[in-house]
């Protein structure tokens, strides 16, 4: 636990909270911003031991102490190949958020940075928690700062968007808590690594999968549950959208990988066709709706629905390429969409509008801006050489391995992505400028926060092997476990749907 002289993961969770508490004693706007930036960089420094992450499937940097022994609750943190990239993504998002809010946020600055720091702590917690209840604590704790980010610093319709966000996500996760408790009562522990060793009856898996999938599908968000996302994205401030896109949405897909596949393999297998179908629906629907948007932020929000559809699709293909692609797509979407939302914030500060028509013809007057926009656009629809290509190509390979039909069904999705990104890009670059003539091109601060993701776009796009080495052992183990255990339960139960129906009617009968 203390290989590095301090508990690495705990410090990553606790330090932002301490830094947030420290905000109360400092004064002055610039000082608050500088302080939070320094804190976010120090947070990355604290994470340096994570560089020594071993390329294996084991849980590493484990910290484990009893929390409520009477109930078997533990404070148990660890990372593996599935979470390590998400942690790095979370850590690097924080300073970028501080930078991109430097002039964007002009009211209640202290509270704003408090929310950012609190958010980071909760997000790191979600990705490292190895105790189901601890996971749930972080999962819910993150709602409050996100709600405030939208409700206080959001656009004109912030009240509606923030409440919708809160209601949707909370409603989804209520049954997750019941599923967690059911795992404890049936499996005897809240510890995720220990539960991963157990095989549950199909009936149990069936209900637990549904309860968990609802929570995760809302978070991702998958097709019928996606309506909170455009509202939240459009109203959220730039930094809020970045966190939402880069980190929050990943929690849903992380949940599928961490809980649904290992804990309920037979049910995952059973529901896979449905999950694949709604993933494809998300891809096509998100892309088609994005094509018709006149609000840039809404466009990117719907593109997120499509991109996250690729992730869930990759997960439920249950082959190595698919899951690898899903993990890559999670990372890439975080980088690229985060970058795009920062760009929208940048141009919004100049035009005070998110309308495409109000931001025309930037190519001549803001060349640096258009360069970055073009780059992120290409990465977004998976142009070869950028990181988007790696993730999407892997999902495609996985999909075609799975079935020709699935493969062909997602091809239009990739085309749609190119279409809507080109549509908005062309207008931004070469439309007739309205007031763009007077705008200044990117300043140094904006260069910095746009350059960092841009470097990653090329790095992952051109040399992804290091990332493969990080995630492969865990993915292979995940799939090996999955394939060995989905069979065990299948023989137990042959007509799950009928059984479920009987159970539902049984409950109804018992109630009457």
């Amino acid at each position, binding site marked *: 636990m203390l290989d590095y002289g301090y508990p690495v993961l705990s410090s990553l969770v606790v330090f932002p909270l301490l830094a947030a508490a420290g905000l109360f004693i400092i004064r002055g706007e610039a000082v608050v911003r500088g302080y939070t930036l320094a804190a976010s960089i120090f947070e990355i420094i604290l994470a340096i031991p994570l560089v020594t992450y071993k390329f294996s499937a084991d849980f590493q940097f484990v910290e484990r102490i009893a929390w409520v022994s009477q109930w078997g609750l533990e404070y148990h943190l660890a990372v593996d190949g599935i979470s390590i990239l998400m942690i790095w993504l979370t850590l690097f998002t924080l300073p970028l958020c501080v930078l991109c809010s430097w002039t964007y946020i002009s009211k*209640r600055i202290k509270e704003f940075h408090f929310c950012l720091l609190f958010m980071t702590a909760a997000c790191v917690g979600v990705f490292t928690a190895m105790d189901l209840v601890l996971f749930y604590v972080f999962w819910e704790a993150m709602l409050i700062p996100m709600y405030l980010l939208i409700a206080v610093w959001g656009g004109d319709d912030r009240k509606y968007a*923030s409440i919708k966000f809160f209601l949707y996500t909370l409603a989804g996760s209520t049954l997750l808590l019941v599923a967690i*408790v059911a795992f404890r009562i049936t499996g005897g522990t809240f510890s995720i690594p220990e539960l991963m060793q157990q095989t549950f009856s199909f009936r149990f898996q069936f209900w637990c999968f549904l309860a968990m999938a609802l929570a995760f599908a809302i978070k991702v968000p998958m097709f019928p549950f996606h309506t909170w996302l455009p509202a939240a994205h459009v109203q959220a401030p730039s930094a809020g959208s970045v966190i939402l896109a880069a980190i929050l949405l990943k929690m849903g897909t992380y949940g599928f990988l961490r809980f649904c596949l290992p804990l309920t393999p037979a049910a995952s297998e059973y529901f896979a066709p449905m999950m694949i179908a709604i993933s494809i629906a998300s891809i096509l629907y998100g892309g088609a709706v994005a094509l018709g948007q006149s609000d840039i932020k809404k466009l990117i929000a719907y593109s997120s629905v499509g991109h996250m559809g690729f992730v869930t699709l990759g997960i439920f293909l249950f082959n190595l390429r698919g899951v690898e692609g899903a993990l890559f797509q999670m990372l890439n979407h975080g980088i690229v969409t985060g970058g795009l939302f920062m760009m929208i914030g940048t141009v919004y500060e100049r035009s005070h509008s998110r309308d495409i028509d109000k931001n025309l013809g930037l190519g001549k007057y803001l060349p640096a801006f258009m360069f970055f926009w073009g780059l992120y656009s290409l990465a977004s629809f998976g142009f070869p050489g950028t990181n988007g290509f790696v993730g999407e190509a892997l999902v495609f390979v996985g999909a075609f391995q799975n079935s020709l039909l699935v493969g062909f069904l997602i091809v239009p999705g990739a085309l749609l992505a190119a279409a809507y990104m080109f549509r908005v890009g062309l207008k931004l670059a070469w439309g007739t400028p309205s007031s763009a003539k007077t705008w200044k091109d990117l300043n140094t601060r904006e260069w910095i926060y746009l350059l960092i993701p841009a470097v990653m776009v090329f790095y992952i796009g051109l040399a992804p092997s290091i990332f493969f080495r990080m995630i492969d052992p865990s993915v292979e183990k995940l799939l090996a476990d999955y394939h060995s255990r989905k069979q065990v339960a299948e023989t137990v139960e042959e007509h799950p749907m009928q059984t479920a129906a009987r159970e539902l009617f049984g409950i109804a009968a018992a109630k009457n």
Partner: protein
Amino acid sequence: MNFSPTLVVPELFQFLLIMALFIQSLGNRSWEPHVEKWLPLFAGLGFFVAIVSFKSSGVMFYDVYKLDALSQFFKIVIAAGFFVAVLNATRQPTLEGEKRSDYYMFLALSAWGLMILSSATELFTIYLALELSSYSLYTLIPLRAHDKRAAEAGIKYILFGAVATALSLYGLSYVLAAQHTTYIAALSAKSWAWADAPMAVVGLSLFLAGMFYKLALFPLHFWCPDVYQGASNETAAYVATLPKLGAVVILVRLATLLKPGLEITTTLAWLGAISMTFGNICALAQKDVKRILGFSSVAHAGYVMVGLVAGTAQGLAAAAFYALAYVVMNLLAFWVISRVASDGRNLVLDDLNGLYKRAPALAFSLGVGAFALVGLPPTVGFIGKFFLITAAWNQGYNWLVITLAVNSAFAIYYYLSLVRHAYTEDTLTEGAAPDTSVFSVVGAGLLAALVLILGLIPAPIFDFAVAAGQGLMH
């Protein structure tokens, strides 16, 4: 009859407090020191006395009065709650000077009745203790100067109380007739199945009605929002918190009779489910903050039932712990309300607008309280709910557990609107400015800290509650 004064020090201390208050109430306002000067100190001392005597155990008065982990747990919580309620009431703007000593005397008397209630193990004793605490409240509720609604609330409380009490007493007679004993220990050995003893089951159900009235459980909840609204903020803070503890402790003791699967247990589960859903849905439409909290009380009464019907020591412990959590969260919410309404008016949601700017500490505390009442981590509200769910899962009432979980989704909307008005709305309304004195801020801060700390480190208190639960189940 054995009586050992050393075992009942908290009760005796409270009794001395009542005597002192009685003497002061004989005089007039010129008697020094004023009651607000000395009472908080001694109420705080009472809390420590209760903590010190947490190990007391034994029985007295022909076994009707039992000191065990459960009773001591509740006495500590009652003493602590009384301390906070007294502190909260010291700045009550709607209480006339002449009536102050009387007010505190009845407050102390009511708390004393609840302390006795937590040790009572025999139905008549329970009844008497319950009445002792109720009668004091009947006089407290109308004590709000220049407000007719307080009188209305007082009448409502008395009439409802009288009916509930009558039902309770009537039920008691049935239980006595059918089972030939009123000792809970003896009763728990008997069968409570409808087929074996229908009269006893009817009797017990009616007896429980008295507790449901105190707890504001559906269908005996109608007084709750009205009384909260009519009574002064400080009185409502008391009515909303401590009497519920009295009801919960008796329900926990009686839960040893309620084996899962019995008709009466299932009825209780149903009432719990209806109560939580009904309370939460009604609260959605409210504008008056105290009415919101009134309906939230109805919902929380339903949550407690989840632990009671589980029929295990853990379930009882979870119910007891949740009662504690409920008291702390509500004291916090009412503390903030009492301080924001520094002129004693009733707050509507719009009165909270811009609180983050006018009183940041109060706004933050209100946020903590509201999110705790929803059951969001890392607060005591979450961990309490979590204990309830874990204790009750696979004990035969899974549908009730799911109802409990889903209810959070209803509840979030109205609790969130408290936070929303405090943090995101900026149009200020007319009215006195919130009290931002050190007293107000420190009180709110300490209660908020308690809500968070109990949520993060529940183990010590919870172990105590489990010991109490095991003491009952053997």
